[in-house]
């Protein structure tokens, strides 16, 4: 592209301004990359879960409303269901009210449905056989420096028969989740449902959700309907969906990360358009005589237009590529610093594509008006500096 030299020269002549503009473009795309990495971490939260032959049955009114424990036996009678287990969840704090620890209480065979959670066989066994036993995710254990054999005292609003507000568990093992999309779930403490239900005062005999393993995932729709039909018109109607679908829904619900990052991006790009638009307008205005000379030498209006648009697009492309490279590095550093549970995905190909498309469009948009104005000037006026 022989005209690239002219474009490059035009950018090079106002080096300081180009540098400033470039820095702000880089900053915008760095932010774009980071936000998009968070957004896609949530958007993809439900993807790539091995053993997704599982359905989750929860209360229809809202996830978290209690369901009767007795439903387990009935779910197991639904054709196509291999196994059904359940769990309850509550929130504890460790030492400081700020240190929230999500706790999930599982029925004895619950973890059998999650073969992909890595748990050493002896830890799995110890969990089953220790009533007050608990399993901590690798991330969680690391965070509070818990070791197998430790007693873990947690504060919770969930009342105990004893009247004690402290729930104490014996850490009998560590589990690990290798799927990077689900790494955030390593922050949960697993305990035994039987112990939990026995010790608590309220809502005895209820569970928060059922996990249902099916024989054939293709049959999950009719099976889900059959399960929900069991409780139809009762006081605890259920809603059953695949585990992946549930995670994806949570991803969306989590304060709608997409919307938030979308509006931040909107503000950033609005500013970016103003800034680069101003730079381009100024750049064209200053070069009217120069453009007049090029036209005198035989450059057509269309060619001049393309040169100006090319200049703008090149600037934005360079900025966006640099910004995304910076974002890639930043994600790695943040992950290394704040742990793998940070909900950020590496900058993926689709982020690159989207960013480059945005860069190209912004580049064209901000240059179009100055360029149109620049070539409307008559040659004789342009070279006379009128």
């Amino acid at each position: 592209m022989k005209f690239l030299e002219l474009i490059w020269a035009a950018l090079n002549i106002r080096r300081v301004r180009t540098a400033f503009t470039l820095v702000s473009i880089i900053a915008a795309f760095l932010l774009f990359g980071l936000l998009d990495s968070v957004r896609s971490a949530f958007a993809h939260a439900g993807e790539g879960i091995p053993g997704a032959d599982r359905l989750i049955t929860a209360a229809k009114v809202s996830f978290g409303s209690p369901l009767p424990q007795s439903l387990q036996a009935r779910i197991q009678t639904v054709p196509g269901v291999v196994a059904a287990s359940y769990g309850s969840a509550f929130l504890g704090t460790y030492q400081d009210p700020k240190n929230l620890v999500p706790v999930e209480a599982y029925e004895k065979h619950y973890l059998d449905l999650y073969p992909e959670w890595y748990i050493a066989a002896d830890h799995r066994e110890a969990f089953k056989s220790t009533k007050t036993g608990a399993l901590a995710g690798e991330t969680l254990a690391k965070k509070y420096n818990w070791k197998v054999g430790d007693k873990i005292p947690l504060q919770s609003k969930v009342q105990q028969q004893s009247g004690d507000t402290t729930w104490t568990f014996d850490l009998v093992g560590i589990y690990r989740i290798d799927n990077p999309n689900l790494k955030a779930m390593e922050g949960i403490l697993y305990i035994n449902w039987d112990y939990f239900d026995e010790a608590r005062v309220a809502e005895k005999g209820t569970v928060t959700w059922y996990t249902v393993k099916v024989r054939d995932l293709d049959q999950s729709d009719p099976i889900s309907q059959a399960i929900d039909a069991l409780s139809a018109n009762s006081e605890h109607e259920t809603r059953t969906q695949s585990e992946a679908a549930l995670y994806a829904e949570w991803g969306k619900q989590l304060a709608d990360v997409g919307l938030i990052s979308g509006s931040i991006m909107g503000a950033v790009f609005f500013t970016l358009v103003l800034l680069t638009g101003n730079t381009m307008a100024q750049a064209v205005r200053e070069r009217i005589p120069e453009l007049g000379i090029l036209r005198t030498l035989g450059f057509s209006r269309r060619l001049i237009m393309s040169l100006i648009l090319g200049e703008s697009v090149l600037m934005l492309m360079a900025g966006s590529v640099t910004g995304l490279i910076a974002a890639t590095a930043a994600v790695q550093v943040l992950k290394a610093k704040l742990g793998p549970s940070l909900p950020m995905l590496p900058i993926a190909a689709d982020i690159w594509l989207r960013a480059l498309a945005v860069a190209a469009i912004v580049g064209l948009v901000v240059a179009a008006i100055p360029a149109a104005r620049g070539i409307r000037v008559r040659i004789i006026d342009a070279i006379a500096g009128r």
Partner: protein
Amino acid sequence: MPLTHSEARAAKPIVQMHGVKKIYERGKQKVEVLHAIDLDIPQGAFIALMGPSGSGKTTLLNLIGGLDSPSEGTIRVSGKQIDQLGEDELASWRASSVGFVFQFYNLLPMLSARKNVEIPLLLTKLSAAERKRHALTALELVGLSERAEHHPNELSGGQQQRVAIARAIVSDPKLLVCDEPTGDLDRRSAKEVLSLLQALNASYGKTIVMVTHDPKAAEYAQSVLHLDKGSLVADPPSDAKAEKRA
């Protein structure tokens, strides 16, 4: 029997203007800047165009060079009628047929002398190597080979104007139009530039139309045209007496 070279020149003027008027509109006011100009410029001529400020010299030159179109009348250059051409046609005609030299050189500051000279060649199909070769040849012609990689701000005014001349001739047009090419130069640099134009006229057969205020500069031309208030006049207006070359 074929015409001799000089007869051919005389028979076919390179520039033929007939009844050329130029009217500028300033708001609602219309100003006729050129009044029905008839002018033939022979092939191979070196003509100085003189006249008081505002008499329409630049306007006339721009019409000859196809930078602007007349309000009335016809203009033919090398037999091609250019007064009715559209913007794009005119642009590509200019690229191949006319070289321009301006008072303030109008080089692109961020490009080296050679790259400046190469600009018109970007519109041709020449390869990068060929463009470079042509540009260096043109720079050699104006005596600036050793300054090829210098930028305009590293060159004197006279040198910059010679680079501009190299740029004007690099695509080998028959016609050069120069608007006060020495207007910004000291006497010595002006002499160099004028000698260069003279050489291009004499040795390379370039037809040159040069606007100048300077009678000394006009002496380098073969003939002088006088423009006064938009009309060509036989004698110079009294305030700007030009002497004929001895």
